Protein backbone atom coordinates (compact mmCIF):
# COMPACT_ATOMS: atom_id res chain seq x y z
CA UNK A 1 0.00 0.00 0.00
CA UNK A 2 2.97 2.31 0.59
CA UNK A 3 3.58 2.41 -3.17
CA UNK A 4 -0.09 3.20 -3.84
CA UNK A 5 -0.10 6.17 -1.48
CA UNK A 6 3.25 7.45 -2.75
CA UNK A 7 1.97 7.36 -6.33
CA UNK A 8 -1.37 8.86 -5.26
CA UNK A 9 0.30 11.72 -3.35
CA UNK A 10 2.47 12.61 -6.36
CA UNK A 11 -0.47 12.38 -8.75
CA UNK A 12 -2.68 14.49 -6.50
CA UNK A 13 0.00 17.16 -6.29
CA UNK A 14 0.26 17.05 -10.09
CA UNK A 15 -3.55 17.33 -10.48
CA UNK A 16 -3.88 20.31 -8.15
CA UNK A 17 -0.95 22.00 -9.83
CA UNK A 18 -2.10 21.29 -13.39
CA UNK A 19 -3.57 24.06 -15.51
CA UNK A 20 -6.07 21.55 -16.88
CA UNK A 21 -7.62 20.90 -13.46
CA UNK A 22 -7.46 24.52 -12.29
CA UNK A 23 -9.16 25.80 -15.47
CA UNK A 24 -11.96 23.22 -15.25
CA UNK A 25 -12.42 23.89 -11.53
CA UNK A 26 -12.56 27.64 -12.17
CA UNK A 27 -15.15 27.24 -14.97
CA UNK A 28 -17.35 24.94 -12.88
CA UNK A 29 -17.07 27.21 -9.86
CA UNK A 30 -17.85 30.35 -11.85
CA UNK A 31 -20.90 28.84 -13.57
CA UNK A 32 -22.11 27.25 -10.34
CA UNK A 33 -21.81 30.57 -8.52
CA UNK A 34 -23.95 32.22 -11.19
CA UNK A 35 -26.59 29.51 -10.85
CA UNK A 36 -26.54 29.98 -7.08
CA UNK A 37 -27.48 33.64 -7.55
CA UNK A 38 -30.29 32.49 -9.80
CA UNK A 39 -31.36 30.00 -7.13
CA UNK A 40 -31.28 32.61 -4.39
CA UNK A 41 -33.50 34.83 -6.52
CA UNK A 42 -35.94 31.95 -7.04
CA UNK A 43 -36.03 31.15 -3.30
CA UNK A 44 -36.74 34.82 -2.45
CA UNK A 45 -39.69 34.86 -4.85
CA UNK A 46 -41.20 31.50 -3.91
CA UNK A 47 -42.19 30.97 -0.36
CA UNK A 48 -42.42 27.18 -0.89
CA UNK A 49 -38.85 26.95 -2.14
CA UNK A 50 -36.16 25.59 0.15
CA UNK A 51 -32.42 26.10 0.50
CA UNK A 52 -31.66 23.21 -1.85
CA UNK A 53 -33.10 25.24 -4.73
CA UNK A 54 -29.74 27.02 -5.00
CA UNK A 55 -28.52 23.82 -6.67
CA UNK A 56 -31.47 23.59 -9.03
CA UNK A 57 -31.07 27.20 -10.17
CA UNK A 58 -34.78 27.85 -9.90
CA UNK A 59 -36.68 25.18 -11.70
CA UNK A 60 -35.59 25.24 -15.31
CA UNK A 61 -32.70 27.63 -15.28
CA UNK A 62 -29.13 26.44 -15.82
CA UNK A 63 -28.38 24.69 -12.56
CA UNK A 64 -25.50 23.07 -10.68
CA UNK A 65 -26.94 19.71 -11.71
CA UNK A 66 -26.98 20.69 -15.37
CA UNK A 67 -23.44 22.01 -15.11
CA UNK A 68 -22.41 18.61 -13.77
CA UNK A 69 -24.44 16.84 -16.48
CA UNK A 70 -22.60 18.79 -19.15
CA UNK A 71 -19.14 19.27 -17.64
CA UNK A 72 -19.02 16.15 -15.44
CA UNK A 73 -17.90 13.81 -18.22
CA UNK A 74 -15.32 16.35 -19.30
CA UNK A 75 -13.96 16.68 -15.75
CA UNK A 76 -13.67 12.96 -15.13
CA UNK A 77 -12.31 12.09 -18.55
CA UNK A 78 -9.83 14.99 -18.46
CA UNK A 79 -8.29 13.67 -15.25
CA UNK A 80 -8.07 10.09 -16.47
CA UNK A 81 -7.54 9.96 -20.24
CA UNK A 82 -3.72 10.07 -20.09
CA UNK A 83 -3.13 8.48 -16.69
CA UNK A 84 -1.20 5.48 -18.02
CA UNK A 85 -0.41 6.14 -21.68
CA UNK A 86 1.26 9.45 -20.84
CA UNK A 87 3.70 7.54 -18.62
CA UNK A 88 4.38 5.17 -21.54
CA UNK A 89 4.77 8.00 -24.05
CA UNK A 90 7.12 9.96 -21.77
CA UNK A 91 9.24 6.90 -20.96
CA UNK A 92 8.57 7.20 -17.21
CA UNK A 93 6.57 3.98 -16.88
CA UNK A 94 9.61 1.71 -17.03
CA UNK A 95 11.40 3.85 -14.41
CA UNK A 96 8.31 3.77 -12.18
CA UNK A 97 7.80 0.03 -12.61
CA UNK A 98 11.51 -0.52 -12.02
CA UNK A 99 10.98 0.38 -8.36
CA UNK A 100 10.07 -2.23 -5.73
CA UNK A 101 6.33 -1.60 -5.85
CA UNK A 102 3.52 -3.87 -6.93
CA UNK A 103 2.22 -3.16 -10.39
CA UNK A 104 -1.31 -2.37 -9.19
CA UNK A 105 0.10 0.40 -6.98
CA UNK A 106 0.46 2.54 -10.09
CA UNK A 107 -3.12 2.25 -11.33
CA UNK A 108 -4.60 2.28 -7.82
CA UNK A 109 -2.59 5.38 -6.94
CA UNK A 110 -3.69 7.19 -10.06
CA UNK A 111 -7.32 6.25 -9.49
CA UNK A 112 -7.22 7.37 -5.85
CA UNK A 113 -5.60 10.69 -6.78
CA UNK A 114 -8.16 11.36 -9.53
CA UNK A 115 -11.05 10.42 -7.25
CA UNK A 116 -9.68 12.65 -4.49
CA UNK A 117 -9.27 15.58 -6.89
CA UNK A 118 -12.81 15.17 -8.23
CA UNK A 119 -14.23 14.80 -4.72
CA UNK A 120 -12.47 18.01 -3.73
CA UNK A 121 -13.95 19.70 -6.77
CA UNK A 122 -17.50 18.46 -6.07
CA UNK A 123 -17.47 19.06 -2.31
CA UNK A 124 -15.60 22.34 -2.73
CA UNK A 125 -18.08 23.69 -5.29
CA UNK A 126 -21.12 22.62 -3.24
CA UNK A 127 -19.53 24.05 -0.10
CA UNK A 128 -18.70 27.37 -1.75
CA UNK A 129 -22.23 27.66 -3.20
CA UNK A 130 -23.77 27.00 0.19
CA UNK A 131 -21.38 29.44 1.84
CA UNK A 132 -22.32 32.16 -0.65
CA UNK A 133 -26.06 31.53 -0.41
CA UNK A 134 -26.42 31.55 3.39
CA UNK A 135 -25.54 35.25 3.90
CA UNK A 136 -27.59 36.26 0.85
CA UNK A 137 -30.69 34.38 2.04
CA UNK A 138 -30.19 35.06 5.70
CA UNK A 139 -30.86 31.43 6.58
CA UNK A 140 -29.16 28.10 6.14
CA UNK A 141 -30.32 24.62 5.23
CA UNK A 142 -32.42 22.55 7.61
CA UNK A 143 -31.08 19.24 8.84
CA UNK A 144 -33.15 17.44 6.20
CA UNK A 145 -31.70 19.70 3.51
CA UNK A 146 -28.17 19.13 4.79
CA UNK A 147 -28.63 15.37 4.33
CA UNK A 148 -29.97 16.00 0.82
CA UNK A 149 -26.94 18.17 0.02
CA UNK A 150 -24.61 15.48 1.36
CA UNK A 151 -26.41 12.87 -0.74
CA UNK A 152 -26.10 15.13 -3.78
CA UNK A 153 -22.36 15.55 -3.11
CA UNK A 154 -21.92 11.79 -2.81
CA UNK A 155 -23.89 11.11 -5.99
CA UNK A 156 -21.90 13.76 -7.84
CA UNK A 157 -18.63 12.17 -6.69
CA UNK A 158 -19.79 8.71 -7.88
CA UNK A 159 -20.84 10.24 -11.21
CA UNK A 160 -17.53 12.07 -11.72
CA UNK A 161 -15.48 9.05 -10.66
CA UNK A 162 -17.39 6.92 -13.18
CA UNK A 163 -16.08 9.23 -15.93
CA UNK A 164 -12.61 9.13 -14.38
CA UNK A 165 -12.66 5.31 -14.56
CA UNK A 166 -13.70 5.44 -18.19
CA UNK A 167 -10.87 7.91 -18.90
CA UNK A 168 -8.35 5.61 -17.17
CA UNK A 169 -9.69 2.69 -19.23
CA UNK A 170 -9.02 4.67 -22.42
CA UNK A 171 -5.50 5.48 -21.18
CA UNK A 172 -4.81 1.77 -20.63
CA UNK A 173 -6.36 0.61 -23.90
CA UNK A 174 -4.59 3.14 -26.13
CA UNK A 175 -0.88 3.72 -26.52
CA UNK A 176 -1.11 7.33 -27.63
CA UNK A 177 -2.64 10.18 -25.66
CA UNK A 178 -3.97 11.65 -28.93
CA UNK A 179 -6.13 8.58 -29.40
CA UNK A 180 -7.43 8.54 -25.84
CA UNK A 181 -8.26 12.26 -25.90
CA UNK A 182 -10.23 11.78 -29.14
CA UNK A 183 -12.08 8.81 -27.62
CA UNK A 184 -12.83 10.92 -24.53
CA UNK A 185 -14.17 13.86 -26.55
CA UNK A 186 -16.29 11.52 -28.66
CA UNK A 187 -17.69 9.89 -25.52
CA UNK A 188 -18.47 13.27 -24.00
CA UNK A 189 -20.29 14.45 -27.13
CA UNK A 190 -22.23 11.19 -27.46
CA UNK A 191 -23.46 11.07 -23.88
CA UNK A 192 -23.96 14.80 -23.37
CA UNK A 193 -25.53 15.78 -26.67
CA UNK A 194 -25.93 13.08 -29.30
CA UNK A 195 -27.93 10.57 -27.23
CA UNK A 196 -30.58 13.20 -26.42
CA UNK A 197 -30.88 14.09 -30.11
CA UNK A 198 -30.96 10.43 -31.09
CA UNK A 199 -33.56 9.61 -28.43
CA UNK A 200 -35.72 12.49 -29.65
CA UNK A 201 -35.47 11.36 -33.28
CA UNK A 202 -36.23 7.72 -32.42
CA UNK A 203 -39.15 8.67 -30.14
CA UNK A 204 -40.57 11.04 -32.78
CA UNK A 205 -40.39 8.41 -35.50
CA UNK A 206 -41.83 5.65 -33.32
CA UNK A 207 -44.61 7.74 -31.76
CA UNK A 208 -46.05 10.07 -34.41
CA UNK A 209 -48.27 12.88 -33.18
CA UNK A 210 -51.98 12.76 -34.19
CA UNK A 211 -52.98 14.98 -37.10
CA UNK A 212 -54.84 18.28 -36.74
CA UNK A 213 -54.06 21.36 -34.72
CA UNK A 214 -53.90 21.33 -31.04
CA UNK A 215 -55.15 24.91 -30.59
CA UNK A 216 -58.79 25.08 -29.74
CA UNK A 217 -61.12 27.76 -28.37
CA UNK A 218 -62.65 30.91 -29.69
CA UNK A 219 -60.74 33.40 -31.78
CA UNK A 220 -61.01 36.83 -30.22
CA UNK A 221 -59.90 38.76 -33.28
CA UNK A 222 -56.94 39.50 -35.48
CA UNK A 223 -53.79 38.04 -34.05
CA UNK A 224 -55.60 36.17 -31.34
CA UNK A 225 -54.80 32.53 -31.87
CA UNK A 226 -57.13 31.42 -29.14
CA UNK A 227 -56.50 29.55 -25.95
CA UNK A 228 -53.63 27.05 -26.01
CA UNK A 229 -55.03 23.64 -25.36
CA UNK A 230 -53.99 20.16 -26.28
CA UNK A 231 -56.36 17.46 -27.39
CA UNK A 232 -56.43 14.24 -25.30
CA UNK A 233 -54.95 12.27 -28.25
CA UNK A 234 -52.16 14.76 -28.60
CA UNK A 235 -51.48 14.64 -24.86
CA UNK A 236 -51.38 10.85 -24.86
CA UNK A 237 -48.97 10.75 -27.79
CA UNK A 238 -46.75 13.34 -26.17
CA UNK A 239 -46.67 11.37 -22.93
CA UNK A 240 -45.76 8.17 -24.79
CA UNK A 241 -43.12 9.98 -26.76
CA UNK A 242 -41.67 11.56 -23.63
CA UNK A 243 -41.59 8.22 -21.82
CA UNK A 244 -39.87 6.52 -24.76
CA UNK A 245 -37.34 9.32 -25.10
CA UNK A 246 -36.65 9.18 -21.37
CA UNK A 247 -36.11 5.42 -21.50
CA UNK A 248 -33.71 5.68 -24.44
CA UNK A 249 -31.81 8.45 -22.68
CA UNK A 250 -31.32 6.16 -19.70
CA UNK A 251 -28.41 4.53 -21.49
CA UNK A 252 -26.53 7.76 -20.87
CA UNK A 253 -24.95 8.12 -17.42
CA UNK A 254 -25.60 11.85 -17.64
CA UNK A 255 -29.34 11.20 -17.64
CA UNK A 256 -29.08 8.71 -14.82
CA UNK A 257 -27.28 11.32 -12.75
CA UNK A 258 -29.67 14.12 -13.69
CA UNK A 259 -32.74 12.12 -12.73
CA UNK A 260 -31.31 10.94 -9.44
CA UNK A 261 -29.87 14.34 -8.48
CA UNK A 262 -33.11 16.14 -9.35
CA UNK A 263 -35.14 13.73 -7.25
CA UNK A 264 -32.75 13.98 -4.33
CA UNK A 265 -33.15 17.76 -4.33
CA UNK A 266 -36.93 17.39 -4.76
CA UNK A 267 -37.22 19.47 -7.90
CA UNK A 268 -38.36 18.03 -11.21
CA UNK A 269 -40.14 18.88 -14.41
CA UNK A 270 -41.86 17.01 -17.22
CA UNK A 271 -45.20 15.87 -18.55
CA UNK A 272 -47.77 15.06 -15.94
CA UNK A 273 -50.89 13.26 -16.93
CA UNK A 274 -53.67 15.70 -17.58
CA UNK A 275 -51.51 18.77 -16.97
CA UNK A 276 -49.37 18.90 -20.10
CA UNK A 277 -45.82 20.27 -19.94
CA UNK A 278 -45.54 21.62 -16.47
CA UNK A 279 -42.99 22.82 -14.04
CA UNK A 280 -43.72 21.11 -10.80
CA UNK A 281 -41.97 20.64 -7.54
CA UNK A 282 -41.98 17.30 -5.86
CA UNK A 283 -40.99 17.22 -2.28
CA UNK A 284 -39.69 13.69 -2.08
CA UNK A 285 -37.92 12.75 1.09
CA UNK A 286 -34.34 11.60 0.70
CA UNK A 287 -35.38 8.02 1.36
CA UNK A 288 -38.11 8.22 -1.28
CA UNK A 289 -35.70 9.78 -3.77
CA UNK A 290 -33.09 7.09 -3.15
CA UNK A 291 -35.73 4.36 -3.40
CA UNK A 292 -36.99 5.78 -6.68
CA UNK A 293 -33.49 6.10 -8.12
CA UNK A 294 -31.62 3.12 -6.72
CA UNK A 295 -31.40 1.59 -10.18
CA UNK A 296 -29.86 4.78 -11.60
CA UNK A 297 -27.35 5.02 -8.76
CA UNK A 298 -26.55 1.29 -8.91
CA UNK A 299 -25.97 1.55 -12.67
CA UNK A 300 -23.48 4.37 -12.15
CA UNK A 301 -21.67 2.41 -9.42
CA UNK A 302 -21.62 -0.78 -11.52
CA UNK A 303 -20.35 1.18 -14.54
CA UNK A 304 -17.60 2.68 -12.41
CA UNK A 305 -16.57 -0.74 -11.06
CA UNK A 306 -16.64 -2.34 -14.53
CA UNK A 307 -14.52 0.41 -16.10
CA UNK A 308 -11.96 0.39 -13.30
CA UNK A 309 -11.80 -3.41 -13.13
CA UNK A 310 -11.24 -3.60 -16.88
CA UNK A 311 -8.44 -0.99 -16.63
CA UNK A 312 -6.92 -2.85 -13.68
CA UNK A 313 -6.92 -6.24 -15.39
CA UNK A 314 -5.61 -4.87 -18.68
CA UNK A 315 -2.83 -2.89 -16.99
CA UNK A 316 -1.72 -5.80 -14.84
CA UNK A 317 -1.48 -8.05 -17.85
CA UNK A 318 0.22 -5.54 -20.12
CA UNK A 319 3.92 -5.94 -20.90
CA UNK A 320 6.51 -3.30 -20.24
CA UNK A 321 8.15 -2.97 -23.65
CA UNK A 322 11.42 -1.31 -24.57
CA UNK A 323 10.77 2.44 -24.68
CA UNK A 324 7.88 2.47 -22.18
Amino acid at each position, binding site marked *: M*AGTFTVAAKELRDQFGSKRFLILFAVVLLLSTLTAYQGVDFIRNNENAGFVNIFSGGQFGFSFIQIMVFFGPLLGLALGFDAINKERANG*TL*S*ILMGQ*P*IYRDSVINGKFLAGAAALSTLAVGTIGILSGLAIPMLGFGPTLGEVTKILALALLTIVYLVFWLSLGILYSVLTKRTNTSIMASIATWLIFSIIISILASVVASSMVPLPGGGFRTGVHGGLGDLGELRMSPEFMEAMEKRSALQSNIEKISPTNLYEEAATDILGVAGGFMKGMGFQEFQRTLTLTEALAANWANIATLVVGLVICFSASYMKFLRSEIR*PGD
Partner: protein
Amino acid sequence: MVENVIETFGLTKRYGDFTAVDSLDMVVEEGEIYGFLGPNGAGKTTAILMLMGLSVPTTGTGVVAGYDIIESSREVRTVASILPEYSSLYGELTAAQNLDYIGKLNDLTKDVREERIGEMLEIVGMSEWADEKYEKFSRGMRQRVGIAAALIKQPKIVFLDEPTLGLDPVGTKEVRELIIRLNREQGLTVVLISHLLNEVQMTCDRVGIINNGKLIVMETLENLTKEMTGGEERNVEFMLSEVPPGLVGDLESIEGVKSVTQEKDQLFVYGGIESDYEVSKTITENGAVILLMRPKEYSLEEIFMKYYEEG
Protein backbone atom coordinates in the same frame (compact mmCIF):
# COMPACT_ATOMS: atom_id res chain seq x y z
CA MET B 1 35.47 -16.45 -4.48
CA VAL B 2 33.49 -14.36 -6.94
CA GLU B 3 29.76 -14.97 -6.82
CA ASN B 4 27.36 -14.95 -9.71
CA VAL B 5 24.88 -12.12 -9.10
CA ILE B 6 22.91 -12.85 -12.24
CA GLU B 7 22.23 -16.26 -13.67
CA THR B 8 19.63 -17.22 -16.24
CA PHE B 9 18.39 -20.68 -17.11
CA GLY B 10 16.91 -21.08 -20.58
CA LEU B 11 15.30 -17.66 -20.35
CA THR B 12 12.92 -17.31 -23.30
CA LYS B 13 10.47 -14.65 -24.38
CA ARG B 14 8.08 -15.09 -27.27
CA TYR B 15 5.61 -12.58 -28.69
CA GLY B 16 3.29 -14.76 -30.76
CA ASP B 17 5.47 -16.42 -33.37
CA PHE B 18 8.40 -14.07 -32.77
CA THR B 19 11.06 -15.22 -30.32
CA ALA B 20 12.73 -12.16 -28.81
CA VAL B 21 14.96 -14.06 -26.40
CA ASP B 22 15.77 -17.70 -27.04
CA SER B 23 16.97 -20.00 -24.23
CA LEU B 24 19.36 -17.47 -22.72
CA ASP B 25 21.90 -18.93 -20.30
CA MET B 26 23.93 -16.02 -19.02
CA VAL B 27 26.09 -15.42 -15.97
CA VAL B 28 27.21 -12.08 -14.56
CA GLU B 29 29.75 -12.07 -11.76
CA GLU B 30 29.63 -9.80 -8.75
CA GLY B 31 31.49 -6.52 -9.17
CA GLU B 32 32.10 -6.76 -12.91
CA ILE B 33 31.07 -4.52 -15.77
CA TYR B 34 29.35 -6.81 -18.21
CA GLY B 35 28.79 -5.63 -21.76
CA PHE B 36 25.68 -6.99 -23.39
CA LEU B 37 25.99 -6.56 -27.14
CA GLY B 38 23.91 -7.29 -30.16
CA PRO B 39 22.30 -5.67 -33.18
CA ASN B 40 18.97 -3.85 -32.96
CA GLY B 41 16.14 -6.21 -32.05
CA ALA B 42 18.56 -8.90 -30.85
CA GLY B 43 16.70 -9.22 -27.56
CA LYS B 44 19.03 -7.33 -25.18
CA THR B 45 16.44 -4.98 -23.71
CA THR B 46 13.77 -7.67 -23.49
CA ALA B 47 16.26 -9.83 -21.57
CA ILE B 48 17.00 -7.15 -18.97
CA LEU B 49 13.30 -6.27 -18.64
CA MET B 50 12.74 -9.93 -17.74
CA LEU B 51 15.64 -9.84 -15.29
CA MET B 52 14.03 -6.84 -13.57
CA GLY B 53 10.68 -8.61 -13.37
CA LEU B 54 9.04 -6.11 -15.73
CA SER B 55 8.33 -8.70 -18.39
CA VAL B 56 7.32 -12.28 -17.68
CA PRO B 57 9.43 -14.99 -19.39
CA THR B 58 7.57 -17.39 -21.64
CA THR B 59 9.79 -20.21 -20.38
CA GLY B 60 12.93 -20.45 -18.30
CA THR B 61 13.84 -18.33 -15.35
CA GLY B 62 16.69 -16.44 -13.74
CA VAL B 63 18.14 -15.42 -10.41
CA VAL B 64 19.24 -11.88 -9.61
CA ALA B 65 21.14 -11.35 -6.35
CA GLY B 66 19.62 -14.52 -5.01
CA TYR B 67 16.02 -13.69 -5.93
CA ASP B 68 14.02 -15.59 -8.51
CA ILE B 69 12.93 -13.16 -11.22
CA ILE B 70 9.44 -14.68 -11.47
CA GLU B 71 8.61 -15.56 -7.88
CA SER B 72 10.33 -12.58 -6.22
CA SER B 73 10.36 -9.86 -8.87
CA ARG B 74 9.58 -7.13 -6.33
CA GLU B 75 12.56 -8.22 -4.20
CA VAL B 76 14.76 -8.16 -7.32
CA ARG B 77 13.86 -4.49 -7.71
CA THR B 78 15.01 -3.73 -4.16
CA VAL B 79 18.59 -4.73 -5.07
CA ALA B 80 18.69 -3.98 -8.80
CA SER B 81 18.08 -0.78 -10.74
CA ILE B 82 17.43 -0.11 -14.36
CA LEU B 83 17.99 2.90 -16.57
CA PRO B 84 16.10 1.86 -19.71
CA GLU B 85 16.81 3.22 -23.17
CA TYR B 86 14.58 6.21 -24.05
CA SER B 87 13.41 6.40 -20.44
CA SER B 88 12.82 9.67 -18.71
CA LEU B 89 12.10 11.11 -15.31
CA TYR B 90 9.30 13.59 -14.63
CA GLY B 91 9.84 16.85 -16.51
CA GLU B 92 7.73 18.96 -14.18
CA LEU B 93 9.80 17.93 -11.15
CA THR B 94 13.28 19.14 -10.26
CA ALA B 95 16.25 16.78 -10.18
CA ALA B 96 16.00 16.57 -6.37
CA GLN B 97 12.21 16.06 -6.43
CA ASN B 98 12.58 13.24 -8.94
CA LEU B 99 15.14 11.51 -6.74
CA ASP B 100 12.95 12.10 -3.69
CA TYR B 101 10.00 10.43 -5.44
CA ILE B 102 12.12 7.43 -6.44
CA GLY B 103 13.42 7.29 -2.86
CA LYS B 104 9.87 7.26 -1.48
CA LEU B 105 8.93 4.43 -3.84
CA ASN B 106 11.88 2.54 -2.36
CA ASP B 107 10.58 3.14 1.18
CA LEU B 108 13.57 5.25 2.17
CA THR B 109 13.00 7.46 5.21
CA LYS B 110 13.06 11.24 4.84
CA ASP B 111 16.50 11.56 6.47
CA VAL B 112 18.01 8.84 4.30
CA ARG B 113 16.46 10.37 1.17
CA GLU B 114 17.82 13.82 1.95
CA GLU B 115 21.29 12.44 2.58
CA ARG B 116 21.36 10.25 -0.52
CA ILE B 117 19.88 12.87 -2.86
CA GLY B 118 22.80 15.18 -2.04
CA GLU B 119 25.28 12.33 -2.28
CA MET B 120 24.00 10.96 -5.60
CA LEU B 121 23.75 14.35 -7.26
CA GLU B 122 27.30 15.01 -6.12
CA ILE B 123 28.48 11.70 -7.62
CA VAL B 124 26.92 12.43 -11.00
CA GLY B 125 28.02 16.08 -10.89
CA MET B 126 24.52 17.56 -10.79
CA SER B 127 24.50 19.19 -7.32
CA GLU B 128 24.44 22.63 -8.86
CA TRP B 129 21.20 21.85 -10.72
CA ALA B 130 19.39 20.02 -7.89
CA ASP B 131 16.51 22.49 -7.87
CA GLU B 132 16.19 22.94 -11.63
CA LYS B 133 13.34 21.26 -13.46
CA TYR B 134 14.29 18.06 -15.27
CA GLU B 135 12.60 19.23 -18.48
CA LYS B 136 15.18 22.02 -18.78
CA PHE B 137 18.14 19.64 -18.78
CA SER B 138 20.22 18.62 -21.79
CA ARG B 139 20.32 14.97 -22.82
CA GLY B 140 23.61 14.44 -20.97
CA MET B 141 22.31 16.04 -17.77
CA ARG B 142 19.17 13.89 -17.96
CA GLN B 143 21.26 10.75 -18.27
CA ARG B 144 23.28 11.76 -15.25
CA VAL B 145 20.13 12.40 -13.18
CA GLY B 146 18.78 9.08 -14.49
CA ILE B 147 21.90 7.31 -13.22
CA ALA B 148 21.52 9.10 -9.86
CA ALA B 149 17.90 7.89 -9.72
CA ALA B 150 19.06 4.35 -10.44
CA LEU B 151 21.62 4.58 -7.64
CA ILE B 152 19.52 6.18 -4.89
CA LYS B 153 18.41 2.82 -3.53
CA GLN B 154 22.09 1.79 -3.37
CA PRO B 155 21.58 -1.25 -5.57
CA LYS B 156 23.97 -4.17 -5.94
CA ILE B 157 23.33 -4.33 -9.68
CA VAL B 158 22.47 -1.67 -12.21
CA PHE B 159 21.27 -2.27 -15.77
CA LEU B 160 22.19 0.59 -18.07
CA ASP B 161 20.57 0.42 -21.50
CA GLU B 162 22.43 2.63 -23.96
CA PRO B 163 23.38 5.19 -21.30
CA THR B 164 25.43 7.24 -23.75
CA LEU B 165 22.86 7.28 -26.54
CA GLY B 166 22.54 10.75 -28.01
CA LEU B 167 25.36 12.20 -25.94
CA ASP B 168 28.16 14.28 -27.38
CA PRO B 169 31.75 12.99 -26.99
CA VAL B 170 32.26 14.94 -23.76
CA GLY B 171 29.00 13.61 -22.27
CA THR B 172 29.87 10.10 -23.43
CA LYS B 173 33.28 10.28 -21.74
CA GLU B 174 31.73 11.62 -18.53
CA VAL B 175 29.18 8.82 -18.34
CA ARG B 176 31.82 6.20 -19.15
CA GLU B 177 34.11 7.49 -16.40
CA LEU B 178 31.19 7.62 -14.00
CA ILE B 179 30.31 3.96 -14.66
CA ILE B 180 33.92 2.89 -14.14
CA ARG B 181 34.21 4.97 -10.96
CA LEU B 182 31.00 3.53 -9.49
CA ASN B 183 32.20 0.04 -10.27
CA ARG B 184 35.68 0.54 -8.82
CA GLU B 185 34.74 2.63 -5.77
CA GLN B 186 31.39 1.14 -4.82
CA GLY B 187 31.74 -2.38 -6.13
CA LEU B 188 28.62 -1.94 -8.21
CA THR B 189 27.88 -4.69 -10.72
CA VAL B 190 27.01 -3.05 -14.03
CA VAL B 191 25.27 -4.64 -17.00
CA LEU B 192 25.88 -2.30 -19.88
CA ILE B 193 23.98 -2.43 -23.14
CA SER B 194 25.58 -0.30 -25.79
CA HIS B 195 25.96 -0.08 -29.53
CA LEU B 196 29.18 1.87 -29.09
CA LEU B 197 31.62 -1.01 -29.18
CA ASN B 198 34.66 1.12 -28.43
CA GLU B 199 32.85 2.35 -25.30
CA VAL B 200 32.20 -1.23 -24.25
CA GLN B 201 35.83 -2.12 -24.96
CA MET B 202 37.01 0.72 -22.73
CA THR B 203 34.53 -0.04 -19.96
CA CYS B 204 33.68 -3.73 -19.72
CA ASP B 205 35.44 -6.70 -18.20
CA ARG B 206 33.39 -9.31 -20.02
CA VAL B 207 30.94 -9.25 -22.86
CA GLY B 208 28.04 -11.35 -24.02
CA ILE B 209 27.01 -11.17 -27.67
CA ILE B 210 23.38 -11.90 -28.51
CA ASN B 211 21.84 -12.24 -31.94
CA ASN B 212 18.30 -13.23 -32.89
CA GLY B 213 17.61 -13.82 -29.21
CA LYS B 214 20.44 -16.34 -28.80
CA LEU B 215 23.60 -15.78 -26.80
CA ILE B 216 26.44 -16.48 -29.23
CA VAL B 217 29.38 -15.94 -26.93
CA MET B 218 30.13 -14.80 -23.38
CA GLU B 219 33.80 -14.19 -22.53
CA THR B 220 36.38 -11.72 -21.30
CA LEU B 221 37.68 -9.37 -23.96
CA GLU B 222 41.16 -10.84 -23.55
CA ASN B 223 39.97 -14.36 -24.25
CA LEU B 224 37.84 -13.19 -27.17
CA THR B 225 40.93 -11.61 -28.74
CA LYS B 226 42.85 -14.85 -28.26
CA GLU B 227 40.01 -16.78 -29.84
CA MET B 228 40.07 -14.37 -32.79
CA THR B 229 43.70 -15.21 -33.42
CA GLY B 230 43.28 -18.93 -32.78
CA GLY B 231 45.00 -19.15 -29.42
CA GLU B 232 48.82 -18.90 -29.60
CA GLU B 233 48.81 -17.84 -33.25
CA ARG B 234 48.40 -14.16 -34.01
CA ASN B 235 48.68 -11.59 -36.72
CA VAL B 236 51.87 -9.51 -36.62
CA GLU B 237 52.08 -6.24 -38.47
CA PHE B 238 55.42 -5.31 -40.08
CA MET B 239 55.92 -1.83 -41.50
CA LEU B 240 58.87 -1.95 -43.89
CA SER B 241 61.01 0.54 -45.81
CA GLU B 242 59.97 -1.35 -48.93
CA VAL B 243 58.58 -4.77 -49.87
CA PRO B 244 61.15 -6.41 -52.17
CA PRO B 245 59.86 -8.74 -54.89
CA GLY B 246 59.75 -12.35 -53.72
CA LEU B 247 59.64 -11.48 -50.00
CA VAL B 248 56.01 -12.52 -49.56
CA GLY B 249 56.75 -15.94 -51.13
CA ASP B 250 59.81 -16.40 -48.91
CA LEU B 251 57.79 -15.58 -45.80
CA GLU B 252 54.99 -17.94 -46.75
CA SER B 253 57.52 -20.80 -47.00
CA ILE B 254 58.62 -20.36 -43.34
CA GLU B 255 57.43 -23.12 -41.05
CA GLY B 256 54.67 -21.88 -38.71
CA VAL B 257 53.55 -19.04 -40.98
CA LYS B 258 49.93 -19.57 -42.04
CA SER B 259 49.42 -16.56 -44.28
CA VAL B 260 50.96 -13.28 -45.40
CA THR B 261 48.96 -10.25 -46.49
CA GLN B 262 50.48 -7.16 -48.11
CA GLU B 263 49.07 -3.61 -47.95
CA LYS B 264 51.57 -1.24 -49.63
CA ASP B 265 54.65 -1.28 -47.37
CA GLN B 266 52.85 -3.18 -44.64
CA LEU B 267 52.85 -6.92 -44.21
CA PHE B 268 50.54 -8.86 -41.93
CA VAL B 269 52.07 -12.19 -41.06
CA TYR B 270 49.71 -14.66 -39.42
CA GLY B 271 51.32 -17.49 -37.57
CA GLY B 272 52.76 -18.87 -34.35
CA ILE B 273 55.00 -16.87 -32.05
CA GLU B 274 57.96 -19.26 -32.76
CA SER B 275 58.13 -18.06 -36.37
CA ASP B 276 58.76 -14.37 -35.45
CA TYR B 277 62.55 -14.71 -35.50
CA GLU B 278 62.65 -16.43 -38.91
CA VAL B 279 60.24 -13.87 -40.34
CA SER B 280 62.35 -10.91 -39.14
CA LYS B 281 65.54 -12.55 -40.43
CA THR B 282 64.04 -13.25 -43.87
CA ILE B 283 62.83 -9.64 -44.20
CA THR B 284 66.28 -8.19 -43.46
CA GLU B 285 67.99 -10.78 -45.71
CA ASN B 286 65.77 -9.53 -48.56
CA GLY B 287 67.15 -6.00 -48.03
CA ALA B 288 64.19 -4.38 -46.34
CA VAL B 289 64.38 -2.38 -43.11
CA ILE B 290 61.77 -3.13 -40.40
CA LEU B 291 60.41 0.26 -39.29
CA LEU B 292 57.73 -1.17 -36.97
CA MET B 293 56.73 -4.59 -35.74
CA ARG B 294 53.67 -5.18 -33.52
CA PRO B 295 51.00 -7.82 -32.96
CA LYS B 296 47.76 -6.75 -34.56
CA GLU B 297 45.09 -5.80 -31.99
CA TYR B 298 41.52 -6.70 -32.70
CA SER B 299 38.84 -4.15 -31.96
CA LEU B 300 35.65 -5.26 -30.32
CA GLU B 301 33.95 -4.33 -33.55
CA GLU B 302 35.99 -6.93 -35.42
CA ILE B 303 35.29 -9.47 -32.69
CA PHE B 304 31.60 -8.59 -32.71
CA MET B 305 31.37 -8.82 -36.50
CA LYS B 306 33.10 -12.21 -36.49
CA TYR B 307 30.63 -13.68 -34.01
CA TYR B 308 27.70 -11.82 -35.54
CA GLU B 309 28.47 -13.24 -39.00
CA GLU B 310 29.08 -16.71 -37.60
CA GLY B 311 25.94 -16.52 -35.50
